[in-house]
């Protein structure tokens, strides 16, 4: 039983995870839109990575693999309905509907993402924030390329609806 071997393996793990941490936290935050939950997702994802660390030589693309763990954690928590966030209060929650031109892009986009079904949200974040290919996203989500494409298209429709005339083509025109 090599405790020395284990210590070395732990060191490699720590180095790898430390280097990835920022990226994973950004991904988790974009997916769940909640800082605490994002860190919980990442904590659990890296724990699972640790449990499988001795098998990493079998994994072709480690970065994608770790992202996939984060995304699957996110989808599982969503499935159980953990991520709905409206508090008991003495007034209705603020609507997340659009989107005057003065509103920060980020806030509008976050509002739009919250309105998407979890898998659709994961697809657009992976495609457009992480800049992954259709094939990579399909691999991470365990679905077909066609599903990723249709979810991307649906996600873009949702974005257009929320971001309104200010966005996309019109935005580009305004800037040029």
């Amino acid at each position, binding site marked *: 039983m090599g405790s020395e071997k284990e210590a070395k393996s732990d060191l490699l*793990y*720590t180095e790898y*995870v*430390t280097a990835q*941490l920022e990226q994973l*936290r*950004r991904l*988790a*935050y*974009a997916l769940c839109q909640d*800082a*605490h939950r*994002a*860190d*919980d997702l*990442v*904590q*659990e994802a890296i*724990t*699972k990575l*640790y*449990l*499988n*660390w001795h*098998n990493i030589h079998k994994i072709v693309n480690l970065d994608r693999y770790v992202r996939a763990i984060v995304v*699957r*954690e996110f989808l*599982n928590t969503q499935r*159980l*309905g953990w*991520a*709905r*966030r*409206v508090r*008991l*209060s003495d007034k209705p*929650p*603020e609507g997340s*509907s659009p989107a005057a031109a003065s509103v*920060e892009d*980020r806030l509008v*986009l976050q509002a739009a993402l919250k309105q998407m*079904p979890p*898998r*659709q949200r994961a697809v657009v974040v992976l495609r*457009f*924030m992480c*800049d992954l290919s259709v094939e990579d996203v399909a691999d991470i989500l*365990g*679905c*077909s390329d066609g599903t990723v494409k*249709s979810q991307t298209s649906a996600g*873009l429709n949702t*974005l257009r*609806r929320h971001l309104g005339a200010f*966005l*996309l*083509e019109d*935005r*580009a025109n305004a800037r040029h």
Partner: protein
Amino acid sequence: MQDTNEQVRNIFATIDTRPPGLSTVDVARAIETGKRRKRFRRLGLSGAAVSLSVLAAIAIPYALQADHDRRKEATATASASAEPSAKASPTPTAKPGFQTRHYDRPGARALPTSCEGTKLPVPGGGIKSYVRNLDPSGRYVTGRIYGGDPEPVLWRDGKATRVPMGGNDDGLEAANTKGDAVGFSYPEGGPRSKAYVGGVLHELKGGTAEATGINDRGRISGHLVQDRIFKPVVWPSANADPIELAVPQGVWYARAFDIDEDGTVVGHIGDTGQRVAYVWYPDGTAQALPTPVFEGKPATDFDARRVRNGWVTGLVLLAQQRVAGVRWDLVTGKAEVLDQIEWSNDVGPSGWIVGMDRANDAVLTDGVTILKLPNVFAKPTGYGMNWGEAISDDGLTIAGLNDDKAHDGEQRGVVWKCR
């Protein structure tokens, strides 16, 4: 001029930020937790003995032990292993002032001894399917299939009928013994509730809404979704206007998940993190279900998902920071924590529960004995889980989900027939 994708990427760059505040991610803690889980697995202890974070408890664990399951192509038979377990909760807890009701209950009977699982067919050649519910007779299964876009499906005696709704991620949620079913679609503009009655698809009145349950009288449970306000409702029939169910003042988020034959509806009030399971009776009264208590500590977040003949099951996040099964009895007003299982997804008229145990296997339990349901497909070692989602009134038909190891853990709907 940028192309559209480039523009979208630019917008997404605005959310590519680190979460505000100090990071709580701790690499050393991940190693420590990982080592502890490995130890417990080697010892063969259940996850229940391990102190896990909330997410750890509800997430799919990376089980590293050899996968002993033998993959079978289409069916799996096993003498289901009945293992007596400790009594689920030493002292089920009651709530002072809880208004109890009378229900006629069948006498106690023994759990089945063997179950055989069969995968549900996916028309169109897709792999994945997702099961949501069974009718009380066990003939009809509701859910959806995946092969390109998801499509709602009603299976009758194992034969699939597609019920296209034209939205995104649509599905059928529940059916009654006549084969009438309800569900919802996600077109642009929010969810639309649907009823499939006599073979015809109707949109339910009330605007954006999700329909969740239907009983044999055709009454439908669900909730209106108005921006971020969720209002529980009952539709007396597929053509009727929805009737809002009472919630305490100041509650803006409440959902109804199921309706019993007598019209009793269950669900929850309050948002995630502080949900309280709730019951609405047909006479218009309503009350919070008793708080589940485990090892002396009351839970702070729990909801009710299914009701049958006065038995209610749902999900509870224990004060011990793990998810566990829970069963309420509207006759006695008691809440019983079932810590041996992680999910208590549905309950039958005898109080039998289907769900998932701590080893991520599908189970049937009467609250004392736990019966593992045989795998139709082996779980992937990385992240697999199989679970029971619905149970028929006679307790002999169970619908659920089973990972398909050959397809990277994609879930396939299965039906177990028990004897």
